[in-house]
């Protein structure tokens, strides 16, 4: 009620005065300077970008191309902004893929050109390591050899899948023979380690009864009673105190897999 009262009175005479001011041309205005669009900064919604290959929608139907029976949606994906959506690039025009020549996954293959060994190459292998040979090896050696075997088995399995998927031909039997030989080596390694474990158990039992051996972990572990052995024992004890330190410094982490340089000497297969 108050607002109209506050408004300044605008008579018909006032209106005509404004019209007169607007219409009286003081100078000719070039048509390009006249305002043609609104002052709004938001983009025009109705003038949309047209996608390449879009159908001409003559009847201006919004649901043109949709089928309730087939459950199809709109033919063209519509975005709120008028910016053209990125189009998929064909495979041939994509830039080449940069790969690492020393990728770790190459270790799954026998060679880089042809993943699968031919039956001839596959059958060229020696025998497995025997238990007797492995008894003389250290834990590190056995561990390295085990990992050589594991990787060889992975290579064989990869080649088997590839041979079957690509329908290359024969070679399954030769690969199986090779795998069997690797398995024999792995079995021998476990055999040797089990033997060692049993020996260690027996040695602990013996040491419990032996008065010369101290199993408490305090003081020297071995104190020989015979005076003839004493002189040697003093030297031996001095050595024994040094050796474990050196070992701890140089021996590799047991959880880590041995390096490839040392594995090169170990494999037989």
């Amino acid at each position: 009620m108050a607002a109209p009262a506050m408004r300044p009175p605008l008579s018909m005479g006032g209106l005509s005065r404004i019209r007169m001011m607007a219409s009286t041309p003081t100078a000719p205005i070039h048509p390009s300077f006249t305002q043609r669009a609104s002052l709004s900064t938001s983009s025009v919604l109705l003038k949309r970008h047209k996608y390449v290959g879009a159908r001409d929608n003559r009847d201006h139907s919004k649901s043109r191309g949709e089928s309730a029976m087939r459950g199809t949606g709109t033919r063209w994906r519509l975005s709120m902004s008028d910016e053209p959506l990125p189009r998929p690039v064909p495979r041939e025009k994509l830039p080449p893929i940069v790969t690492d020549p020393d990728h770790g996954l190459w270790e799954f293959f026998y060679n880089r050109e042809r993943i699968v060994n031919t039956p001839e190459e596959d059958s060229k292998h020696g025998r497995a390591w025997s238990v007797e040979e492995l008894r003389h090896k250290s834990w590190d050696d056995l561990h390295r050899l085990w990992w050589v075997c594991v990787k060889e088995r992975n290579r064989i399995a990869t080649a088997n899948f590839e041979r079957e998927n690509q329908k290359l031909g024969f070679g399954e039997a030769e690969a199986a023979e090779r795998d069997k030989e690797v398995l024999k080596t792995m079995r021998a390694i476990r055999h040797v380690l089990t033997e060692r474990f049993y020996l260690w158990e027996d040695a602990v039992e013996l040491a419990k009864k032996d008065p010369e051996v101290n199993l408490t972990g305090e003081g020297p572990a071995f104190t020989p009673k015979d005076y003839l052995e004493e002189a040697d024992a003093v030297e031996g004890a001095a050595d024994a105190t040094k050796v474990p330190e050196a070992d701890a410094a140089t021996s590799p982490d047991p959880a880590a897999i041995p390096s490839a340089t040392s594995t090169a000497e170990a494999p037989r297969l």
Partner: protein
Amino acid sequence: MASQAVAAAETAIKELPRRFGTKQVFLPKAVVAFLRPKPKQPPNLATFAVPMEFNKLDLRDYLYHAYNVEVLSVRAYIQQPPPERRGGAPQGGRWYRPKSKKFMIAELAKPFVWPEPVPESDREAFDHKIWQKIEDHKERANQRGEKPGHIPLRKDEEREYGVSREREVLKELAKEYLESGEWKGPNSGKWTEVEKELDAEKKQAA
């Protein structure tokens, strides 16, 4: 450009947070096979066939420690094969379900592109031709086993296997017989033409 990209990838890899399992496995028995990617599979995805007991974390740690391959994420799936019959024969044999297989797709930090497959012409070392022949024969035998009541016509057989040697020889002999009027095939000297002799006897009687 290429070396820069590789270097950038390597520095990014070095900054990744690494968390590994604490259980130490010294003598693993698992066999992991690396499978060729599907034609449209991107190069940063690597497929592996793994033992059923493997989980995603196992594969991640295995690849890092054994192969020095950095993995960003792992997807796993199991393929359950359809039931089969024992003995491989289509008829007979108890139904059983072959063991399922587990596969994992690792998203690699560094992409890996497989070499091209061996072309058909270079498969002589695998005796591809005779292998293919045997495979085709097996396939046909399987198809025949599916429809035991269907006995193929000779022309269908000949279209698949070619004309047999016996039929070719027989055809030649028959042609020769028709031309010369004399049988030269097996048992050629032992036969007597009965009608001919009867005719001769009749003539003599007349």
